[in-house]
């Protein structure tokens, strides 16, 4: 991917305010299914927040703390591929501009 003058997505997200729910991930991926269906790169490219990173074994790593809670993955992925809720009360992204 070409570099952007506004930094990498990860660098941009570092400016955002998050309250991370360390104990309860709000996204749980079924990596067996993701591997079998070959969905790793699909997850990687659709998410504007780069929550998903394709692994060598065909699964994905999930950096749920970076999630912007848009729901794109939930809307596009097969139902078997993931469980997705909004983060628990008081957690997740806190936009300061909007």
């Amino acid at each position: 991917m070409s570099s952007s003058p506004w930094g990498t997505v990860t660098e941009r997200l570092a400016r955002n305010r998050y309250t991370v729910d360390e104990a309860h991930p709000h996204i749980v991926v079924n990596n067996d299914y993701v591997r079998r269906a070959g969905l790793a790169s699909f997850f990687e490219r659709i998410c504007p927040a780069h929550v998903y990173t394709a692994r060598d074994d065909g699964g994905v790593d999930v950096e749920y703390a970076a999630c912007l809670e848009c729901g794109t993955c939930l809307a596009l992925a097969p139902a078997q591929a993931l469980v997705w809720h909004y983060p628990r009360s008081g957690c997740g992204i806190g936009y300061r501009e909007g």
Partner: protein
Amino acid sequence: MEDEIFDAIVVGGGVAGAVCAYKMAASGLEVVLIERGETPGSKNLSGGVFYCDVMSTVFPEFLEEAPLERVISRNCLMFLNDDSHVMIDYADRRLAGSSNAVTVLRAKLDQWLIDKCEEAGVMVMPGIRVDELIRDGDRIVGVKAGDDELRARVVVAADGVNSFCARSAGIRRAPTPDQLAVGVKSVIGLDPKVIEERFGVNEGEGAAYAVVGSCTRGLGGGGFVYTNTDSISIGVVIRLDELKAHSWASSSQIHDDFLAHPEIARLLEGGTLREYGCHLVAEGGHAMRGTLVADGLVVIGDAAGLTLNTGFTVRGMDLAAQSGICAAETLVEAAANDDFSAAGLAAYERRLDESFAGRDMITYAGAPDFLESPRMYGAYGQLAADLFFTIYRHDLTPRRHLVGQARAAWRKSPLRLRDVVSDVWKGVRAL
């Protein structure tokens, strides 16, 4: 908490939920508003211009008091190609004077709205996620949040485009990918004077761009740019079915490429990134409408799919506010009649259909189909640029009449007459 019964629980403190809660409380109902964001607006993103006349019908002080960014006096429709663009640039003093279109930043606006709710007596509970609806038979009688239960005579689902309330009530299905788009947006801080010079607007006024073409690399959707007081909101909206279908398409890369386009990058020069965010938008129009009431439940705002993209304008907040008004009027009546059944609440759907919001959804019911054409996102912009190129490029060959030039540009284009006639016809009927 278990024993208290409210008249209404509003789930979601955006424009729709806040307007609805405010109006009900102002009419004497006991209202609680639950918002999952720790502070109002912290989960919300504005997608563009707020056509805000409707707000003054609820809050007469809206234009004076609300935290508005700029009054939009200049609208641009830009067909963007890789190396060219053609733009319709419309500025009008009448727009500046009427204050009918403004830009807002939701973290500020939603806080103001929630403050108004509290003044009117709404019990506001921020930082609480509603987990599920509580039922008594077929009737919705409250909500569950963690271990807490809250009961009311009616629940208002104002919980946004992903509305889990409406889905779990079984009255609305999850939208299909072609009915949704993802907006990816950056807020870029810039000096107000620089903004005014760069966008050619007076102090306090602003510009809004709708962009089609290479901003989405030909995918269904578009780009947007609009000015706030001391920042620019800029980004892309990509239809989810298109994002899914093209394996090269990365939502963040399409956003980055748009911001890096030379014609766009010049607008942002010297700015600093304040925020990067994303949010889903309902794009299905009237076809998504469906049922909006059940026993003990009404659905309003984005949760009801109330957004409109006509190509020229993208609207949501004004429709959200109007749906909140229609719901509040219905629920005040329902409280007086003690009838919160689906049959009683159907008056909300009738009110909505008779309002400007419902009528506009029907008027523009053909817009999603019209905007479905892939030609909107590439070929037309290139054809327009090719035509103007032949007009302005004098290369010592003898000039031809414009019709001949147009014919030559047309022959170069991949467009076929049948498709264009069909698009024009759809456009005329849709808009």
